């Protein structure tokens, strides 16, 4: 095979694997951003965290969860702290995994297969 074509095909393989792996890392980040509290399920997003910040003077609150059901949060301060730290931890993990991924230039290395 012509070397130029071979290199292009290799790069094509890399791109396919990279894009799929990047998507899986993003999905993992979303998974890590799901919090469970008071029987409710909450997906932590920037908007949700911002909404929680607006409630900071309250001790308790009723918050609507992912199933559109009201959930009573009795210790709002603890809930907010936990939500912020869970989101930060998920983002840090995503950042670390993404940095590792972009440092690798071969499909096998992208998925940790060496």
């Amino acid at each position, binding site marked *: 095979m012509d070397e130029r074509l071979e290199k292009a095909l290799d790069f094509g393989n890399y791109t396919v*694997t990279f*894009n*799929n792996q990047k*998507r899986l890392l993003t999905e993992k980040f979303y998974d890590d951003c799901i919090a469970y509290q008071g029987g409710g399920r909450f997906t932590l997003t920037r908007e949700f965290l911002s909404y929680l910040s607006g409630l900071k003077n309250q001790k308790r609150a009723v918050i609507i969860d992912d199933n559109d059901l009201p959930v009573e949060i009795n210790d709002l301060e603890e809930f907010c702290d936990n939500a912020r730290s869970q989101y930060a931890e998920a983002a840090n993990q995503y950042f670390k995994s993404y940095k590792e991924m972009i440092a690798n230039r071969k*499909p096998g290395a992208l*998925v*940790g297969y060496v």
Partner: protein
Amino acid sequence: MSKGVLCFASNNLEVDYVKQAVYFAKRVKKHLNLPVTLVTSDVNYVDRLNVRTVFDKIISVDKEKQNQKRFYDGSLHNKLLSFDNASRINAYDLSPYEETIVLDIDYILFNNVFLNCFNQPHNFLIYKDAIDVCHWRKNPEFEYINDNGVPFYWATCFFFRKTNEVQVFFNLMKHLKENWTHYSSVFDLGTPTFRNDHIFSMAIHIMNGYKDSNWAKPMPGRKYFALDRDVIEVLDDDHVILLVEKEKYIGEYTLASLKDTNVHLMNKLSLGGHV
């Protein structure tokens, strides 16, 4: 309330489901620390393997009339084999636990997210949506069970509490199963072959009042799956590496990996080589 995991495993000529169930139960113990009950028609084989201690209980059932299906091992290799899948709808009666997680043995656990089932108020949880490990595939069969918009639910993984309402649901499935030819036609499935995902989807649709509603709430976390066209390359404690079929190139693969993420690996022939 008693809590545990229920799984089903009955061997066919090629797939050693019991051996896979042993591997599965060990992972449940590690990540969820819950007792596992095995429902099987191969109790003698369990004894021959000397693995009774892995399970909390072993429930012997008669071999059901088996369905045939094509088992793929990658996109180019397949075999027509029998499989026994009809006991799932009896999970309510079979489970020795008041709160039960039912999992396919090819649902590989890497974390403890399912423990959140026990800290929430809903009595029946199941996944409706799922994420393919490979983004270029479209899987319309996993969105609706027919062309009339009845949503697809994954019977591979669900949670229930023993309540009257949930018992009504399981009894409904027994009725659907007894009259399967009729209901598979009413629901326009296009095939009379019995499938757990379909019977669960049909029963949930009825419990929803024949509407798109939310009687069944989602399981904790999200479900990932790899098809039997994908091959397992590495499976260890914290991650899995898969060869996934390339888009439009049958028999060619690229790599994908998941770390600390529960995943349903449908290639049972490939899974058998890793457990």
